[in-house]
Every structure is written in structure tokens, then in C-alpha cells.
């Protein structure tokens, strides 16, 4: 069984109000060294698929079609073998 670990992040030029607010929240807690904070999504998918090549193609398509919004987001992912 394969596990896909997908990171979906806002494109660098896109405003991240949540990240900005967390940064200023951290600053008011005294964590003033934080210069920037960006918040994205982390998805873990378990796939009933053993062929990494097929899995890679599938996950890439899932990202393009549903998991990431290409207008404002980028994605990367990695696959790893896990116990069924």
C-alpha cells in the first residue's frame, strides 16, 4: 500500500491573511523572530495501489483536478510505502 503526502501551498504572490494574522499573533506572544508565516494544507492519502508509477500519475491528476486550486495554489507530493 502506498501513502501520498501532499503539500498544497498558496502561490508566493497570493495574499495569505491567515499566515499574516498568525505571524502577528506570534509576535504579540513574544516570538518576534518570526519574519514570515505562510499556511497551507497537508494531506495524507492512502492508496490501494502498489505500482508507484501509476500512483504518481494518479495523485498528480487528483491534485490538478481537486486537491489544489491551480489559480491560487501550488502543490508538491511524495509517495511512500506503508503497511497495508
Amino acid at each position, binding site marked *: 500500500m502506498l501513502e501520498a503526502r501532499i503539500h498544497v501551498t498558496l502561490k508566493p504572490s497570493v495574499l495569505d491573511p491567515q499566515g499574516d494574522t498568525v505571524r502577528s*499573533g506570534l509576535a*504579540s506572544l513574544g516570538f518576534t523572530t518570526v519574519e514570515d508565516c505562510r*499556511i497551507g494544507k497537508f494531506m495524507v492519502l492512502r492508496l490501494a495501489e502498489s505500482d508507484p508509477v501509476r500512483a504518481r500519475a494518479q495523485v498528480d491528476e487528483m491534485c490538478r483536478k481537486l486537491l489544489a486550486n491551480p489559480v491560487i495554489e501550488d502543490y508538491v507530493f511524495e509517495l511512500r510505502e506503508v503497511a497495508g
Partner: protein
Amino acid sequence: MKCGILLFPGTWSHQDFAHVCQDVLGCDWGYVWHKETSLRGYDCLILPGGFAHGDYLRCGAIARFSPIMDAVVRFAREGGPVMGSCNGFQILCEAGLLPGALLRNTSLQYRCGWVHIRTESLETPFTRGLTPAQVLKIPISHGEGRYHAAPETLARLKANDQIVFRYATPDGRITEQANPNGALENIAGICNEARNVLGLMPHPERAAEAILGSEDGLGLFRGMLDASAARPA
């Protein structure tokens, strides 16, 4: 006697609570800005609904670190009545004044509308004036109101009679259909062990006038005010 209404950046129900205090109940009230550090002069506290700090990260997560929160914790420890509604409930949980957490509605959508809640405990200052199992018609308005607690926490809540409200049908049955957000065991509101801190997702301030559809929320205010009046100065 004076009711303090907390005001965080992003709070929006404060005006409605002030309206009920002033125009419906005729009691003294004042806003408490989150950057203040003292609650001197207040006899009871309301943490209203809204999106404090945008509810970014998690609802209430940033607000709990507001300067005023130390004073709120002290006020609660000293037995002062504290009611958190909606976002206020979320803040109280994040601050550790109430156990558990509020998660995204199972529907993944915001829900606004009328619900019914059944009173599960009269042993709080807020509910003392209600009748056993009394059903209240009251609005909700939230995207993250699914109450969650670990099994041990839930057991403790039950053992201590800390579950104050459950979502119910109009005739008081606890059903899945009546649960608007997937909350654990239909929990809509809980209190702390000392019973002076109440958190609930519904909005009692929106159920305080007949013209808006219900006066069932008024009992909570009256109970809180009575308890405040009875406290030693």
C-alpha cells in the same frame, strides 16, 4: 451591578448583547477591550460571538492570548459568572477554562438558523431558573461548532453533570437529526467544574425578544444577573 462584554478584534455579537442588557433587561453594562488588563467594577462577564482575530488558525486560538484573558481567568477562578456564546465558547475552550474543543461542522458548511436545545442541568447560575429538561428555541450561527472531547473528558463531564445543553427536537428528544453540527452526544453547552463558567454555541442574545421569534434566551441572562447580584462585593 454591571455586566462586562468582552470585545476582541473581529468580535461581532457584542452590540447584540449590549442591546439586550440595555433595552431588554435594563441592566448596566460596559465593553471591555481585549487590550485592557483589569475587570474591576464588573460583576459578570460575557464573551460574545464573532470571529476574533478572524478565527484564523483555529477559532479562539489567538484571542485566548489577549492581555485581558489573565483577568478573565482570575475572575472565573474567583467564582464570577462568565458566559461565552459561539466564538466566546471557543475562546473559553482554547483558554482551558472549559474542557474540549470545537471543530468544523460535519457538513463543512456554516449554519445559521433556529435550533432547539434541551436543558440538561439546572445546577448552574445561568440555568437555575429553568425547568428540568426545558427546551429552548434559540439560533445558532457558526462554522465550527462540533463539540469534541476525549473519552475521559466526556466521562468526567457526565460524572460532574457539566453538560448543560444538548441539541434536541422541539419536543425534547435527542436525535441525530436535531444535531446541527455533528457535536459529540449533541452537546451544545457545558460548564466548568465550579459551574460558574458556561460555554454554549447558540446565541441567547438573539432569542431575547418576541418580535425576533423567541424569548427563550432571556432565562440565561436573568440567571446570570441574579447570581452576580448575590455575589459578595
